[in-house]
Each structure stands twice: as C-alpha cells, then as structure tokens.
C-alpha cells in the first residue's frame, strides 16, 4: 500500500542534473573550476506508450498502474501522480510520487489509500514534465448497495485479432469494474496459435525478457488501453499467462528438456505478470497464491480463484473413444479425493468466504468450467456417463463435490445460496444450472429437473473469448446436441466472440452476452445475444431480458 496522501514536494531531480538544478545561493562555496560534464539522457519521446490502468479496487483504495519508456541507460525514474474527483483533475484528493527502475521493467504500481467508497476517480502520472493519458477508476461500494454492473472477459489472444470487445466495454460509462477471468495473454510464437497479428517476441515466451516483451505488446494495443483507462480491472490468470494447460508442477506446453525448469519459468512469468498487471499481491512471499476477494457492499462478494499454479493436480488423460473424441469416466484416478484443483488452503479460504460474507450474492470468478459437460449421458447411479474435458472441474470431481458441499451446507454450516460461478477458458458462451447429477431426473435422489431447475444448487455463466477462436457451429446443431446430452445447460453458443455483462441487484443477477461482429478488423458493431437471470434464493436460471444502463453515469475519462 502506498503512503497515504500528502502533498509532498517532489524531490529534486533524479540525476546529477537535478542536483545542479537545486544548487543555488551557496554555489559560491562550490569551486571555481568548471563543472564536470553532466550525464544527461535524452528525453523520452513518448514516456507512456503502454497507457495507464487501475485494478483490484477496494472500498478505500485502488491500484494505479503505468509503465515508463525511458531513454536507454536510465536507472531510477521518479514518477508523480495525482488523483482527483473530476476529469479535469481540478479537485485533487491525492498526490504522490513513486519510482521505478530497470529491475521492474520500468513499471509503476501505486496503491493510494484513504479514498471514499463507491466513488469514481480520475488520475494521471507525470514523468520528466510529460503527462500520461488521464485514467478513470472507481472504488468498491460499502454498506447498502442497490446495484453493481460488471463486464466479464477472458481469452484475449492478440494474434487472433482485434480487441473490439475491449473497446465496446470502454464505451460503457456505468460499469463498476471489468473482470478478466484469465488467458489475458498467450504464450505462443509466430503462427503457432493465430496469425492475424504478429506476436512479440516471435518465439514462445519462456524467459523473463520474453514475458515482459509480450506483456508490453498487449499493453500497447489501443483497444486494451481504452478499456484499462476507463475501468478498474479485477483479473485472475488462467494457464496461458504462463503456458497451456498448466498445473502446479508442469504444463502440457512446457518441455523441461528444451525450456528449462518449470519453477523458473513460473517465477519469471509471474514476475512479469505482477509488473505489468494492476493486481495487488495478497502475499508477496506466496506469489502463486493469487486468490483474492472483493466486497461490493452488502450486495456482492466476488472471490477470484487461482486454479493453476498453487494447488492443481496434474490433468489426467481422456482415453475413452466417443463419436466426439476421447472422453473419460469418474473412476480410477479420476475418483481420487486427494486430487485437487484449488489446493486445500484455498478450498478452506473459499469455504470461509462463502460462509461468512454478509453479501447477498457470491460470485466465484475463475477459469475453467464448473458445470459438467458430458459426451454420453448417464445418471451418477449408472456411472455418470462420459465426460469431455479433463482440464475442467470435470477432471476433479471429488474436489468439485467439496465445493458443492459448501453450497449445500451440512450439520455445522448453513447452505450458501445465491452463488454464481463466472467462467472463461473455452472461447464460447454457456449458461448452466449447477447440479451434481444432471442426468438423473429424480430430484428426490439428488437429481435435477431440467424443466423447473429443481435440484440446482447454484448457477454458472461462461463468457466467450475476446478473440480466441470458438467452434464452428453455423447452424447451432452442435450446441443443440450438447444440450440434449447435458440438460442443465440453458444456453450454448459456440462461435461468437465478445463479452458478458453482469447486472446485480438485490432481487436478481442478470447475465448478458454481447457479441462483436468480427475480430479480423477494427469494428464498432456489437449485438446483444441473450440474457439469463437467477432470482434471489432460486439458485437456478431463467430467461431474462436486456438490462438498462445506469442513468447519468460518471463521465468517461477525456
């Protein structure tokens, strides 16, 4: 946390040039000899090439981020910042200074405290007399909170196209925050996964320099800058922030023989991540444990889950042939309760957050799909059927059952209602009732009634990707087939890209899917696609309608 605000005189320069600048009345005692040549550096032409961002808002603070592009050879760089309540920065509430250096890749992260809850702020950085763009952010509300509106994104692959979804989100002035559910960037090299735009560096990211360069490329994107400049970001990584299908001790796309030690790769990837993302570390000594909680007054508790690096057991192979590809059943190692996706400490933390929060709604922001996706249907009593993707919660059913136990309660704990799972990862749009036995129509035996939703314990909204490709399904026949096997899904759209909008009030949570028309070029076209809602206490989804924006939202940053 940054030092609380106080208007502090900016110290004299950051170099010998600054020293001489303040040499004044007593200069006579300095020698008569000519001064040594100064080690000046050229002024950077564009010191804020990577924009500004804010993130991890709390009721009294928010991370402010930028990156300075100094002239070559520069060491320490001092940056000043200002926070105000108006876009013109005339109503200043805080000023401060921060520093950066090559060891931090010249990134700046400050965490000004003492802000007011539920308030929109505007901020700006200055270095060497040059100003950054003005950013806009917002603290979390406290106390009675009538409404929260959030944009939800995931899977933003620069190589696959333009971040039109980000631009559309930037234009919405009434959002409290943007949630990024992971795969904020992709590790692949040129042509390995997407070829509309060329990745920097051209190779797969493995070293610290690689990861920093890739982050820098993403932060230079104009649409990304627009979104991050207007809204606070609440982000959690999925796998591609390090590499594909990662788990605690390795990854599908990591070859130790050619790419070195896994732990080293994780360390450098996370170093770059924390440098380049407006994220607050919960514990600097446990950098993999990035789970955090955000309280939106009495309305919403948002927990962001870490599902890759802190506790996840290795994915198991799917080996059973089906007409749709290989699947797996919940036997053998898949039934091992020791296997975990969150790790025991995070499971305990999640249970505590869900059981103790006073907020009406509980959102679980996370990467991989919680609902079951089966390729062959069967009730649990008949083996449960064949599952599709072992990287999702389906591959960790005993661990998922422990989360269901939190929802359902037990002799010592009341049930936790109004849980909403938000998911990314799979480049497509889904809405699901969450039930442990979706193919069992008998609710008396723990089953699920697809007509009424009875038996559902919570709901899930899966957001499509910003750019990463979905599945070609022009007629919707694949989606229809999947729904016939998996009756707990209320909505499946496999092709379109865009974002979700969550509108939360005490009475209901509405999830809307908004799709962009293309990612192949810059486009302003977006379309409302569908909306589903969970009413207070229902724990199940019904069709909903598009919500209306908040009236008179705070002005966007100029």
């Amino acid at each position, binding site marked *: 946390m940054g030092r609380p605000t106080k208007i502090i005189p900016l110290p004299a320069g950051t170099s010998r040039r600054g020293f001489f600048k303040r040499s004044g009345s007593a200069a006579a005692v300095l020698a008569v000899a000519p001064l040594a040549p100064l080690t000046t550096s050229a002024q950077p032409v564009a010191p804020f090439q990577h924009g500004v961002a804010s993130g991890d808002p709390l009721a009294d603070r928010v991370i402010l981020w930028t990156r300075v592009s100094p002239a070559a050879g520069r060491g320490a760089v001092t940056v000043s910042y200002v926070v105000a309540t108006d876009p013109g920065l005339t109503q200043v509430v805080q000023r401060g*200074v921060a520093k950066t250096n090559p060891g931090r890749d010249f990134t700046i992260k400050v965490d000004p405290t003492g802000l007011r809850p539920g308030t929109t702020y505007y901020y700006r950085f200055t270095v060497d007399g040059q100003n950054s763009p003005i950013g806009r952010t917002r603290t979390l509300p406290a106390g009675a909170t009538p409404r929260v509106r959030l944009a939800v994104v995931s899977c933003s692959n620069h190589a696959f196209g333009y971040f039109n979804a980000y631009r559309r989100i930037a234009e919405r002035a009434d959002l409290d925050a943007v949630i990024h559910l992971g795969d904020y960037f992709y590790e692949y090299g040129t042509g390995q996964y997407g070829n509309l735009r060329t990745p920097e560096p051209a190779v797969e990211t493995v070293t610290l320099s690689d990861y920093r360069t890739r982050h820098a490329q993403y932060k230079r994107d104009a649409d990304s800058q627009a979104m991050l400049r207007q809204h606070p970001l609440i982000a959690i990584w999925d796998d591609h922030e390090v590499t594909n299908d990662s788990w605690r001790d390795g990854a599908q796309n990591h070859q130790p023989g050619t790419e070195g030690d896994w732990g080293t790769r994780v360390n450098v990837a996370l170093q770059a991540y924390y440098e380049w993302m407006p994220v607050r570390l919960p514990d600097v000594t446990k950098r993999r444990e990035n789970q955090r909680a955000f309280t939106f007054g009495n309305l919403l508790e948002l927990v962001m889950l870490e599902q890759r690096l802190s506790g996840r057991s290795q994915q198991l192979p799917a080996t059973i042939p089906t007409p749709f590809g290989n699947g797996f059943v919940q036997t053998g190692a898949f039934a091992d309760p020791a296997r975990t996706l969150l790790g025991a400490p995070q499971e305990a933390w999640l249970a505590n957050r869900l059981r103790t929060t006073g907020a009406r709604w509980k959102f679980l922001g996370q990467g991989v799909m919680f609902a079951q996706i089966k390729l062959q249907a069967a009730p649990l009593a008949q083996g449960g059927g064949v599952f599709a993707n072992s990287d999702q919660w389906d591959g960790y059913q005993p661990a998922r059952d422990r989360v269901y136990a939190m929802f359902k309660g037990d002799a010592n704990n009341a049930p936790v209602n109004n849980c909403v799972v938000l998911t990314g990862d799979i480049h497509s749009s889904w809405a699901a009732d969450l039930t442990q036995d979706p193919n069992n129509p008998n609710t008396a035996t723990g089953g699920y009634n697809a007509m009424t939703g009875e038996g559902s314990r919570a709901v899930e909204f899966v957001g499509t990707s910003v750019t990463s490709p979905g599945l070609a399904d022009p007629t919707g026949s694949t989606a229809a087939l999947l729904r016939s096997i998996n009756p707990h899904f209320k909505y499946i759209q496999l092709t379109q890209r865009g974002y979700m909008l969550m509108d939360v009030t005490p009475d209901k949570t509405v999830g809307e899917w908004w799709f962009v028309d293309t990612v192949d070029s810059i486009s302003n076209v977006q379309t409302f696609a569908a909306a589903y809602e969970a009413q207070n206490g229902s724990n199940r989804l019904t069709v909903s309608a598009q919500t209306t924006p908040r009236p008179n939202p705070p002005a966007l940053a100029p």
Partner: protein
Amino acid sequence: MKSIFIIARRAAAAATLLASALSAHAANITLSNTMAFHNDVVQVDFTMAAAGSNVRIWTDSWFSGQNFDPGAALWARVGSDFSRLAEVDDDDTIAAGQGFYDTGFFLPALAAGNYRVTLVAAVNASNGNVLSQGFSYDRETPIPLALWNQPTYDPNVNDQKGGFWRLNLFGVSTANRVPTPGTGWLLALALPLLVWSTARRQR
C-alpha cells in the same frame, strides 16, 4: 517501545561515532549505521581543509531494495545554520557498487569550508534553503522503517524495509556524524564511564 528503539539506536550511533571520528587530509571515510524511523535524519559534518577536486559523496546501501531508499542533501555552514547547496534523491553514477536508488554527489571542485550531509528516507525532502527549516516528515509520528511502505517501494516485493545506511565520503578532510541531542547525552554519559572502565582495567 519506541524509547527502547531510540536508546538502542543512539547507543549504537555513539559507538560508531567514537570509532569513525577520523581526521585526515583528503581522507576516504565510510560511515554506516541503522536508521530506525521513517522521519529520521542522519547528519554528517565534513570539512575541507583546502579546496578539493573530485570530491565524491555517496550511499551504497539500498541493496536492490533490501534497505530504505535514501535521499541526501548537501549543506554549507553559514553562521550558525547551514545553507542548502543541493539535494539529490537518486544518483547511482558516483561510484561502483551503488544501486538504482542510491544517492550521492560528485563535486568536481569544492572550496575549503565546513559542510554537512543529511541523509533521509526518500521522499523526506528538506523544507527550505536552510537546514533549520527541517524536513517534510518532521511533524509526523515516527513509523519504524520495517513497518513503513516507503512511497518509492515496490508493492510486488514489499521491499525497502531495512534501516541500514552507509555513506562514503571521498576526498574530504574530516567527517563525523552529528550527534543528536540524545546521542550527545549518551556520549556525555558514556565517556566518563569509558575513562573509568579503562582506568580500572589498567589498575
């Protein structure tokens, strides 16, 4: 608790002072100790018996964030006060071994006279052109450095919590850390004890 910190700090400072009160022409002197609180001001007097060239004064104790980020000001004695010549937050070009946030002065030529260097935790800047005007954090309740998030710290690693400082003076005549009033009192107490102890051992 704070008074214990202060007494311990000042006792250590007194010991250092006794050991480092060197006097030589064009000497190279290194002083070091530990700063306890965020608004402490370390003051070091030095003299130039004659005009000197290539005088260098620098810190090398930041240690990539292991210790606090120092700032320094250089003052010239004017009557009973000191007049500020320069104030530098960061300069790692003075000598090898400095880190990005270390500070210092390179003085190609410096007239004979009496000078003072003040060392603070950035950005506890001086309030004015004379030393008696104090520093910007002077009125704040002291915060132990170990518990303080220095404005220039890195939130990603929670660094700059150490209080060790080291000041090197190259090409000066003499250099002494200025005792704080408390340190002076301790010295006044310590010196007779030292004399008594030495005499007792000699007996």
